[in-house]
């Protein structure tokens, strides 16, 4: 029911409602409900761990709440939220790496451990190896791959989110697919 209410408003209407101080809490609640599924999917694919995903998702919305008054609406609200979520994921990964003293080459091992421990997802045969291949990619390349492959976004949409040129994104995606195919080759 609440989900139906949140999706019946457009993003523009929700932002305008947020700027009315009497309705800002209600508006922000609807924004959270409307955009949680998409942002959750993006973050979960990057971080794999469910608890980490919840924390980063929360941080994303807190940042959005702080910045929504100054949101210039030169991009769509969804794009802006995706941008915050992407940056929060990268920041989280870098912070975790420094805090836990995980060297760059062990990031893959760390994510693979998370994949093994992930009880929320049932993997088919071979699918786990596919996810392990994705986990072996550098984080920015992994982000682009997930947005293109799983979320079926266009390069233009991804360019708006990441601030990278379409040409660079195409190259990045192409390299990512080659790496994954190479990873999946039988030894």
């Amino acid at each position, binding site marked *: 029911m609440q*989900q139906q209410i949140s999706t019946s408003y457009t993003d523009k209407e929700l932002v305008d409602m947020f700027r009315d101080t009497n309705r800002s809490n209600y508006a922000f609640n609807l924004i959270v409900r409307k955009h949680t599924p998409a942002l959750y999917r993006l973050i979960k694919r990057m971080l794999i761990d469910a608890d980490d995903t*919840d924390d980063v998702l929360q941080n994303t919305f807190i940042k959005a709440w702080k910045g929504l008054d100054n949101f210039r609406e030169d991009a769509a609200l969804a794009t802006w939220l995706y941008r915050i979520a992407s940056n929060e994921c990268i920041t989280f990964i870098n912070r975790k790496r420094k805090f836990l003293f995980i060297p760059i080459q062990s990031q893959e091992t760390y994510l693979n451990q998370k994949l093994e421990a992930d009880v929320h997802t049932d993997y088919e045969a071979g699918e786990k190896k596919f996810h392990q291949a994705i986990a072996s990619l550098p984080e920015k390349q992994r982000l682009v791959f997930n947005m293109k492959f*799983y979320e079926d976004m266009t390069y233009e949409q991804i360019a708006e989110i990441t601030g990278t040129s379409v040409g660079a994104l195409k190259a990045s995606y192409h390299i990512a697919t080659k790496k994954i195919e190479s990873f999946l080759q039988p030894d």
Partner: protein
Amino acid sequence: MSFEEKYKHYQNSGKIDVSEDYVNKMSIRISEKIAERKGIKIPIAWSLSGVSFAGFALVVCLFVYPKFQHDPTTYSSNTNDSIEKNILAHDSGKLAVTHIEKKNETISNEPNQESILEYLLDEEYEEI
């Protein structure tokens, strides 16, 4: 065959469903965090106001207040619309008090001719 065509089945099976229950829980969690942050802002604001006021009071005590302290016997300045008592000590030991009303005038410690004459003709004056 393109990469997407080759691994399309992983594309479909890799879809993540987000339950209504999860959305509700996350919505409540975020609302609580925002309320918490709003609550913290008020004590911080009060603390900063208190520190600012204390700093201002200190500046006034150290730098501004002393400027109002002055030695009346060496007073010499331009002031507007003030009435001052100028106490003059003289050889006889008697004090003559002159009221001076100033309006953009330069004050001199030296008495003018009229006031000297007035003083000399004063009955209580005794020539030593």
